[in-house]
């Protein structure tokens, strides 16, 4: 068995959600003796370069990935389990009255913003806010500034006060190889173009087009399967798991093989009240479907102390004080990098979801379930290392790579350059003067050597 590798980890490039720098995480992972570490930031690959450089230097196998938030449900979701409606922020002790008005049980979390964006794309300028607010204000025509082609007016979405539990389901994607990295890049680009400012929009359709070379983990407790399992929707969870497994299955994939499987059920235990239930249900589901499991810890900071910084970041992102945050802050302080031993010591690893041990109450039929959960947990820890070992993306910074430039047949690069220069000179200088000619001649002679042509 290989050593453990953490496959779900946010750096501070998960803006206002991750509390540790990539270098710090790498350092800690090496300290804990991990074989690999994945970086899975929210909806972006911003930290990838810094991270993989640092990891290579430290001798850690870098796994590149992404945690996406899906904006839609794959199947109709009338109960709002997968894409929940946003409920008004509950005011608690020490909170200003009123709270934040949020959208009602809308179909998608971004309905209002997307509508505005649709208007912007259709060419109609969005109404200036002032005109909507103040009746008597003059609507002065504004000069159309020079816009770059493809420019869009940014649409901002106010997500303050909207916690993770009220947004779309999460899914973790890891690149197994270079093709997988390309898929990730495509996904991120498309999703950002489809989304609003700082809020990319991943849809199931988009995901289905870009699965090459990707490994999917079912996500944290806010993943679709976990959400379904938490409310007891076993059938729905099973259907979702089968759907994802089909989606990511490649030709040579065998479901129960870690080396080739492309969809893993993710198990996490953060010592929350329903984590026992969630882990037990996940392992049960894995057994029923024969899907491999993997244990992650949804890392948001390298050390336990990072929790404080993480809470402060959460407060900033929601525009509230720490006291007002309530359930917007992660209620657990367990999202730090944990070694295999620490993970094994968690309740499912100890096999102590136990009615079946001698001191227990002999709860009928539960001993089997516990043993199953424990076995799955142990296996998931092993699988994490194996999976990391099977992922290799080399960003290849050792050599230079220039963009390709087509040269007409019969020309060398330099002869073509000379030709272009003369053509430009003819177009630009009327009449052509002797210094120009002299300079051209000088440049073309020197450019055949190692000297780059000086600008003329």
């Amino acid at each position, binding site marked *: 068995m290989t050593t453990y590798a953490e496959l779900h980890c946010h750096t501070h490039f998960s803006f206002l959600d991750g509390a540790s720098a990539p270098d710090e995480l790498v350092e800690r992972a090496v300290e804990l003796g991990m074989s690999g570490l994945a970086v899975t930031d929210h909806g972006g690959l911003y930290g990838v370069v810094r991270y993989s450089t640092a990891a290579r230097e430290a001798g850690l196998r870098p796994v590149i990935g992404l945690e996406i938030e899906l904006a839609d449900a794959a199947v109709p979701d009338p109960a709002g389990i997968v894409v929940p409606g946003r409920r008004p922020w509950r005011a608690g002790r020490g909170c200003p009255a009123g709270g934040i008005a949020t959208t009602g049980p809308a179909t998608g979390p971004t309905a209002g913003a997307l509508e505005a964006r649709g208007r912007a794309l259709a060419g109609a300028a969005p109404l200036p806010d002032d005109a909507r607010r103040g009746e008597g204000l003059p609507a002065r025509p504004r000069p159309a500034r020079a816009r770059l082609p493809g420019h869009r007016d940014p649409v901002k979405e106010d997500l303050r006060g909207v916690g993770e539990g009220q947004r779309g389901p999460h899914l973790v994607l890891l690149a197994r190889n270079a093709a997988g990295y390309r898929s990730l890049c495509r996904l991120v680009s498309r999703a950002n173009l489809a989304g609003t400012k700082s809020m990319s929009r991943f849809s199931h359709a988009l995901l289905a087009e870009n699965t090459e070379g990707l490994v999917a983990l079912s996500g944290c407790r806010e993943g679709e399967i976990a959400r379904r399992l938490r409310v*007891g929707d076993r059938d729905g969870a099973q259907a979702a798991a089968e759907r994802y497994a089909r989606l990511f299955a490649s030709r040579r994939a065998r479901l129960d093989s870690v080396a080739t499987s492309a969809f893993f059920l993710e198990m996490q235990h953060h010592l929350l009240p329903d984590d026992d239930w969630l882990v*037990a249900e996940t392992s049960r589901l894995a057994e029923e479907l024969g899907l491999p499991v993997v244990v992650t810890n949804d890392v948001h900071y390298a050390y336990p102390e990072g929790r404080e910084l993480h809470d402060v970041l959460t407060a900033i992102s929601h525009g509230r004080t720490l006291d007002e945050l309530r359930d917007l802050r992660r209620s657990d302080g367990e999202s730090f990098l944990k070694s295999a031993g620490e993970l094994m010591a968690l309740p499912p690893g*100890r096999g102590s979801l136990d009615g079946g041990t001698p001191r227990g109450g002999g709860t*009928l039929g*539960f001993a089997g379930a516990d043993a199953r959960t424990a076995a799955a947990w142990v296996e998931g820890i092993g*699988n994490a290392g194996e999976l990391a070992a099977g992922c290799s993306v080399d960003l290849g910074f050792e050599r230079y790579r220039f963009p390709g430039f087509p040269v007409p047949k019969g020309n060398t690069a330099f002869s073509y350059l000379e030709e272009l220069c003369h053509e430009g000179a003819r177009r630009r200088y009327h009449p052509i003067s002797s210094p120009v000619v002299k300079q051209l001649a000088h440049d073309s002679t020197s450019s055949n050597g190692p000297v780059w042509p000086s600008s003329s």
Partner: protein
Amino acid sequence: MTTPPQNVQAALASLRERWGGAAPRWGGEVEGALAVAPRPSPAFDPEGLPGGPGALPASDRAIPTGFHSVDAILGLGGLPRSAMTAIQGDGTSGKTTLALQAVAGAQAAGGIVAYLDLARSLDPVEAAARGVQLDWLVVLMPDSLDEALAMAAMLLQDRTVDLLLLDLQFWTPGGAGTSNSNLAERLNRLAALARRAGVQVLVLEPPSLPPALAGVLIQVAALRLELNWRAWIRLGRDVVGQRTEVRVTRDRFGPPGRAAELGILYAEGGLRDACLIRRDLLRESTPGTGRLTAAWGSGVAPLGGVAPPGGYRPNLPTSAARLAPLHPPAITPVPDDATSPSSLASPSPAPGPRQGLRSIRGRADHSWRQAVDGRPGPGREPPCARAGRPDPDAARGGP
């Protein structure tokens, strides 16, 4: 409870399709389960209260307890007004639940309730979840039984409250300033006052009361219910509810000796509460025999005599081995047509009457039999409580 009319059924079904677990339910459909709504609304809507669907109209002599099976075995169809009711039960017997449900019933009928919290253990959130209007709940915290009785007498004399809940849970005999000699007399006086003032008095009575006091309570109470824990309702490892037997040991208004069973679900908050309305996920269990011999309060059990469990096994099963189940599941879900679980995602047609409890118990009983008669797992013993457990249908009792 009655079956909802056709049009109501259709309306409920469509609501459930739209709202899932948060949809309104026909009264009593899931007995004892809390609504999944996260924040109980304190709004007081006087017009909406009486005669809502499922709520029994409060008669002028009795207030319904909110548990239909309990109401059914009581002579008056509820707890009598202007009399003393004693609810006796052990540590986790459900008596607080029953009492708070009665409080909610009294408030729904327009009453003001005083809670004499001798044990200092009222949880307002739980109370509100049971339907208690905290606005109309006066909480008094006496230090001793003497004080509690004095407070009760003052409240009764002025007739300012309609229901008085006296919680003796942790009261220990020989507490400060309690004189047992005239307790009987004072309790008698209290009962007389309650009768005259038309105030309902509920006494929560732990089994550890001194016999003298218990005897007095038996005498003065017009109605006495005995609650006994029967089994846990489990969701995975966690205990999410319990089953309780209610037995009428004394009833001035009807025949004593009837019994009923309650299913109480705790619903402690969080997304997982939605599992509680899926009966196929819930299991029922009693602790095995011989392991938990020491009953609550019955002396000291030997500690440390049990070998510690071995922790996790170092020889880990490989993935291939795991895919074959290690243990065959001890409880195979039995398809039960009568109890098709109302799914959150795919709504089932409106269930028939009295389904909630029966299905939980029916399922569990079935599994019991299967486990006990067929193939008791290694190290699992049939429960001792089996013999003492009344037949489910007889237990329902009542008219």
